[in-house]
């Protein structure tokens, strides 16, 4: 009885739902690569490094002698 019921519902559902081809029609790798490029963390210089560079440049301009100190540190 239960099997008959299941068969009846199988038949009803197969008629009601659009048949779907499970075959993939194209290679999705290019899309995948785009996704990886878009979502991967960008390889940018952190803001802190830019701020540090700005401080060094400004201090070198304001206090030219600090260039010697910087060269000594390098």
């Amino acid at each position, binding site marked *: 009885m239960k099997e008959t019921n299941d068969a009846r519902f199988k038949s009803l559902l197969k*008629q009601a739902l659009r048949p779907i081809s499970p075959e*993939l029609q194209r290679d999705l790798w290019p899309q995948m690569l785009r996704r990886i490029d878009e979502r991967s963390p960008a390889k940018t210089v952190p803001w802190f490094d830019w701020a540090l560079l700005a401080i060094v440049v400004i201090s070198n301009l304001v206090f030219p002698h600090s260039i010697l100190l910087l060269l000594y540190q390098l």
Partner: protein
Amino acid sequence: MAAQTEVRTQFSTAEIETLKQFAAGDLTAFETLFRQHQAQVYGWIVRVVRDTGAAEDLTIETFWRIYRARKRFDPKRSFGAWARRIASNVAIDHLKSVRPEACLSAEAVHAVEVDSDLQQHIRRQTERAFRQLPVKFRAVATLALVEERPYEEISKSLGISVGAVKSRVFRAVRLLRKKLKQSGVEP
């Protein structure tokens, strides 16, 4: 231990090496695995969501989740089974996000000019009732009743027991019958 040995023997040395490289973050290894498994993952997703356009996007989403979780992947396990499990979750998440009525118009086109009014009415009501099923019942019913996939395969892919699959199919059929009766269709 015996199971692990069995799993190991299923893969060639080259495959295990590719899986190890993938887990270590190698993009070429990921490409190899992607090309090997994309058709299988897509085929599984499209069976659940029944929308080819969405299935392509969801295949990409599945592999994106796989790529992000690569460090947690155990190269001794089956990549295909892991991918299918993730694909099932992605497909079910998608079904949850789509309103049941959203697909009705597209599906209805299928029936136009083919059937008598009565048959068309039955089809539409069946489809409407089906779309209103809770997602976890709908996914299992699609795979078991429409696609006729084995219960064992469904259980592994969804990460539930075979008993739970049978129970969901049973409850899905019972709910469908109730909804169809309410809309005047006697299944």
